[in-house]
């Protein structure tokens, strides 16, 4: 009567292959979202510090809106909601592409960028104000002083919270299966419905998520300890 375990089923053969495919998709979507959200987050953070009102407002609205609504709702918004906003021709073209994947990347990027922007902003605030005044006094423009003086220092300070954001992306990426992206969690669910051996599949997926997270966090920590101290401030 008990649940019978069959680990071989998910560790090799057809179903093992599904897990590997799912893992590849998870890594791809996470890497893309991390890269894009870092860029977008930096931009949003810098906009907030410009003294131009519309840009500041935009930045505040962006951060607060995307930080304070559920990611699942946002994923549905980008995937199903875009239909009514975009013109027919664009929609038709989009749907012939891998729109599920694209909508997933956009949702993850925008959501994470809102958090990253706040982290970066706090990093920038940690740099004494005199530094930006000094760099502006030497004749650098606002953007130049950000690029050469402030941001390089701010990024070092915010590495720990940034790692948490990256790890969140990997875990949050499991939500994109709701719009049919075949990621690791999706494949696990499929194995469950084909074989009824869901326990094994979910255990393997959990361990994989854990392994990815540990690898990312160890790597960045080592970088923090070994490499960063060699670079003089």
């Amino acid at each position, binding site marked *: *009567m*008990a*649940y*019978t375990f*069959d680990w071989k089923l998910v560790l090799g053969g057809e179903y093992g292959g599904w897990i590997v495919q799912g893992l590849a998709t998870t890594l791809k979507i996470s890497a893309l979202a991390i890269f894009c959200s870092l860029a977008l987050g930096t931009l949003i953070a810098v906009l907030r510090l410009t003294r131009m009102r519309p840009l500041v407002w935009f930045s505040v609205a962006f951060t607060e809106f995307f930080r304070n609504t559920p990611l699942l709702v946002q994923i549905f918004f980008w995937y*199903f909601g875009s*239909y009514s906003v975009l013109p027919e021709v664009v*929609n*038709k073209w989009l*749907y012939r592409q891998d*729109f*599920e994947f694209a909508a997933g990347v956009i949702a993850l990027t925008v959501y994470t960028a809102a958090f990253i922007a706040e982290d970066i902003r706090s990093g920038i605030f940690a740099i004494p104000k005199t530094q930006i005044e000094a760099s502006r006094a030497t004749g650098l423009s606002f953007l130049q002083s950000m690029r050469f003086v402030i941001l390089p220092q701010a990024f070092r300070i915010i590495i720990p919270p940034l790692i948490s954001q990256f790890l969140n992306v990997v875990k949050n990426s499991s939500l994109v*299966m*709701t*719009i*049919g992206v*075949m990621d690791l969690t*999706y494949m696990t*669910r*499929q194995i*469950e*419905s*084909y*074989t*009824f*051996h*869901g*326990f094994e599949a979910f255990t393997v997926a959990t361990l994989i998520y854990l392994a990815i997270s540990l690898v990312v966090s160890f790597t960045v920590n080592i970088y923090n300890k070994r490499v960063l101290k060699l670079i003089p401030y």
Partner: protein
Amino acid sequence: MRKWTGIFAALMALMFAVSTAQAGKLEDIKAKGKLVAGIKDSQQPFGFVDEKTKDIVGFEIDIVKYIADQMGVKLELKPVTSATRIPLLTQGEVDIVAATMTHQKQRESQVDFSITYFMTGQRLLVKKGGDIKSAKDLAGKKVGSAKGSTSEQNMKKAEPDCTVVSFETYPEAFLALKQGKVEAVTTDEAILVGIKYSDDNPDNWDIVGDYISAEPYGLGVVQNDSKFRNYVNQTLMKMWETGEYQKVYAKWFGKDTKNYIPLTWKMELWP
């Protein structure tokens, strides 16, 4: 490391101990005076919440009701999803699962199935008057389905050059079809009929193509309890032979219903 292995082993042992505690299911059910059935609560017309009475009703509910009546026990309904139905059954939380579950060989290592109580097949739901007439027309196109079903692999076998997008539930797959994100929705015909008539204008949609696969539904019962399974099988046969099955079928799939599917198959009857 050893400590962790120990804890893990203890947890596993606990799980086994809990689930091996009961003996024969049939005696068990009679002793507690109720049959706990895992059913769907949002799958018209198999198991769904009635808008007026707020009770869970449907074809599968009537099937398990008949079995409970024959046993002389009360029926308790427990809504399950495709992700929860198997753990609930193996742990003994439910005694029987009637949740549009296709009897598949691959699935037999975990539970036992009764004889087929409903026969359907996988087909395609498409926009009326479109180009899609059969699975072959979907080459290079996207097809929607829902997770927890086995429609995806069947579709891939019928037309290898199509992309299957699996949504969380069928209403989302249907929304994707309406928005043109997918060209068709594929799953069991009996479910497609339900989706089609859930729309305000059912006439805009067509169910087309040959059967991509056969989908015999079986009741799920715990593994290795032949006494209980025999009882369930014989009760199903009795239901068919006495004409009760045909009555229930007509109630949910008959001509006057919006889910009209002619009864074209025969239950396996043992002499």
